[in-house]
């Protein structure tokens, strides 16, 4: 596609990348068809092609972001379904990430938006603070009736209260530690313990560590590693995202240079997409950060990818449970991992079914369900209906955001790794027993 940047604009490294992305697009429109917001809203402006055009115009003009551009870019889930569909190989993720940063730098949001985004950016990446906030939200839940139902502010508040689990799991934040392999050590990996996930569902990390150590892998939760930076990155808070990423890169680089690391394991796929992009995020940083970031990105693996390289075998008899595998967008589109989780679940003895419209996002999308509750709720309902139609007894997914979004419906939810751990001798995921599932039949 034609672009109109001046030579001076093109000297900006971010513009240079965006120009390359834009020039790859041939405006064929395939992406519109698989974009969740275009499917729901039926407006070119809420499609990837429309957003690409809006972003192109914004960047070319060099003007501050306008209210309209912000509206339509904010509605993008960053699910990256468009990237799976695009025949030309347009790197939409890098373009929209650039646009989000550009918006934050040039557009002043209304005060309540700034307050909410600021709050989310401060609280979610900090497990202790987030846990306190959830306890607060739990006490506020009975007051939900008082929240105004009209207007974005009320809807967002309601969405936040609804997200707070009725029963908060006991605090089990992973401390920096090394979990030795049982038996001879075959590999040594770092686990991204994450931020929000370990507050919402600490059992996921516990299952991951149990499963990996049982398979002869030493698992390190590195000192100084924390949030991957995705949360703030997707809000366009560039500096905060870089700081979070830098802390992780430093922590894991120390491990690589120390006892060595075969991989950095991520069990929340939303985070995995970002960690795998560290090389790009640090492309213009001075050394040694640039090479360190690239080295971390190369070693980053989703837990399901890593497990296919090990000899995973169940030790329990097949449970006879029909599992609907929900493909998290960050896994299927962001990282193009589609077969591994299903194959592992089948190896573990589950009957795996796939809901229709599997390519469409469930509406979680990081903080999207809090910032865009209307669209998120419609996508959630659509997803749950498609899952229900499969007749499955349980939902499995590889991302905490999706698990939170899909929980609370008819079916129990579990992280893929929890089910694999269960069948390999670990405890049943909380709230799921073979018996309870069978009784539901």
């Amino acid at each position, binding site marked *: *596609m*034609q*672009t109109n940047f001046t030579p001076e604009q093109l000297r900006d490294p971010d513009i240079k990348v965006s120009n390359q992305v834009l*020039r*790859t*697009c*041939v*405006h*064929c*429109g*395939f*992406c*519109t*068809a*698989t974009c969740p917001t*275009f*499917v729901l809203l*039926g*407006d*070119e*402006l809420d499609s990837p*092609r*429309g957003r690409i*055009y*809006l972003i192109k*115009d914004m960047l070319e003009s060099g003007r501050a972001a*306008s209210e*309209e*551009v912000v509206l339509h870019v904010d509605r993008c889930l960053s699910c990256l379904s468009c990237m799976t*569909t*695009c*025949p*030309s*190989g*347009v790197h939409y993720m890098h373009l929209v990430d650039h646009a989000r940063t550009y918006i934050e730098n040039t557009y002043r949001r209304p005060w309540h938006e700034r307050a909410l985004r600021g709050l989310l950016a401060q609280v979610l990446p900090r497990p202790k603070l987030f846990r306190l906030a959830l306890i607060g939200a739990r006490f506020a839940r009975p007051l939900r009736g008082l929240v105004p139902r009209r207007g974005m502010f009320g809807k967002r508040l309601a969405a936040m209260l609804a997200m707070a689990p009725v029963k908060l799991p006991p605090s089990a934040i992973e401390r920096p530690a090394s979990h030795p392999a049982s038996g001879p050590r075959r590999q040594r990996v770092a686990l991204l313990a994450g931020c929000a996930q370990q507050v919402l569902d600490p059992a996921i990390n516990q299952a991951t560590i149990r499963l990996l150590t049982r398979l002869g892998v030493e698992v390190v939760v590195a000192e100084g590693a924390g949030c991957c930076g995705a949360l703030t990155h997707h809000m366009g808070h560039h500096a905060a995202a870089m700081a979070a990423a830098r802390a992780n890169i430093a922590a894991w680089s120390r491990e690589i240079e120390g006892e060595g690391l075969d991989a950095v394991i991520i069990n929340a796929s939303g985070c995995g997409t970002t960690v795998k992009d560290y090389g790009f995020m640090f492309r213009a940083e001075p050394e040694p950060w640039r090479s360190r970031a690239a080295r971390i990105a190369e070693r980053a693996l989703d837990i399901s990818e890593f497990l296919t390289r090990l000899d995973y075998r169940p030790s329990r008899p097949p449970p006879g449970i029909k599992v609907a595998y929900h493909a998290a967008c960050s896994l299927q589109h962001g990282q193009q991992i589609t077969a591994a989780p299903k194959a592992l679940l089948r190896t573990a003895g589950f009957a795996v079914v796939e809901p229709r419209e599997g390519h469409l996002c469930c509406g979680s999308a990081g903080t999207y369900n809090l910032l865009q509750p209307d669209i998120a709720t419609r996508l959630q309902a659509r997803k749950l209906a498609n899952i229900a139609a499969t007749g499955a007894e349980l939902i499995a997914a590889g991302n905490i955001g999706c698990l939170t979004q899909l929980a609370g419906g008819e079916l129990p939810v579990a992280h893929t790794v929890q089910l694999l751990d269960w069948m390999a001798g670990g405890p049943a995921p909380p709230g799921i027993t073979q018996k309870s599932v069978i009784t539901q039949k």
Partner: protein
Amino acid sequence: MIELPPPKPETLAARPRLIAGLRALVPEDGVIAEALCLKPYETDGLAAYRQVPLAVVLPETTEQVAAVLRFCHENGVRVVPRGAGTSLSGGALPLADAVVVGLMRMNRILDINYADRYAVVQAGVTNIGITDAVRERGFFYAPDPSSQLACMIGGNVNMNSGGAHCLKYGVTANNLLGLRIVTIAGEILEIGGTHLDAAGYDWLGLLTGSEGQLAIVTEITVRILRGPEGARAMLAAFRANEVAGACVDAIIASGIIPVALEFMDRPAIHACEAFAHAGYPLDAEAMLIIEVEGSAAEQDDLLGRIRAICERFDPISLKVSQSAEESAAIWKGRKGAFGAVGRISPDYLCMDGTIPTSRLPEVLRRIGEMSESYGLKVANIFHAGDGNLHPLIMFDANDPESFHSAETFGADILKLCVEVGGCLTGEHGVGVEKRDLMPVQFNARELDQQRRIKTAFDPDWLLNTAKVFPLKPDIAHAA
């Protein structure tokens, strides 16, 4: 840049009033009027031509479409219908004084009748959306344009779209039973029905392929067919374009009609393989995708006979797909072919001429010669069995010189198609792209006949004007 008729000053002057009037006819967010938001609507799949419209309206029902058209008619405002905006001939290119009527929100399937094998759908349902809705019961909607994932059935009707599998099943026109249309005066009419062939004149035939110039189609009754027992694709790789072309001619001449017979040349093979990882032969100059269907015995028999024909042309390799996944990848590559060319060139013009299949080798050779003399690369991807060519001329839109050469080169290819006994457009429509070449195909009287049909439906020439017919006499006509 393509020449467009001068906007009517009175329409531009009345813009605020017109927009307020439109806002009263559709739901709140259904009128787009901010300059910034109109920009993404300035073009379609032919991004080289652009024009920001006066406004965009997104109606949700046939009645709303009727109200919008009535309003535009009363105010003498031009209208450009739009579906998914995937047209490669600029069929949805706006005009500065036109209201774009986007049908994307009309995306519901209204009725499916398996006993009588039809489905009633709104114009904004995607082509693949119809098949998706009936797939579980073993049915499908046959015409399959490469953009079937995204393109909408309303647009398919207006362009009489084809596709890879139309060799066996026919194009859109052969798979329609009825239409609900809205005239420019805002009248809602029903054409045809849910059964084969309507009484009286063949209005359905007239409206199919009318490029949004006669009416806006809002609902379509399509035939759905039961899927075959099975299908298998074969990849045949050859040492030269002309050899593959001669092989196509030999297959067709033998009396075999495969369900699909597709051609790709070297640049296309490489671009598509990078996207689809389908195992295309990267050492070949040209490749044919030949698909047969039916029972296993039928498939074996046909593939055996086709293999024997291919072997006469010294193929580099002949490979039959071994699984459903492999076949899916083969078609993913072919159907993503135009977009995939974006990997090797920032821009392309996609031609769409038809020729008698017996002239394939000669035409391919002459396109190759033109490519050399214009200094522009070409990727050839097309429905070879139908003789429907899609040479993609690669250029760089950031270089005006290169775009101009590409346009001229494209025109030369289409003139060649007409010269050898073919036609300017197989399935993409004339649109704005081939408008000025119409006199190559038709003489003045023939063109005037066609204009009279347009005038009968749309006396003021408000509907998708500036397309299909050369501009100059067109304006005279409207005046």
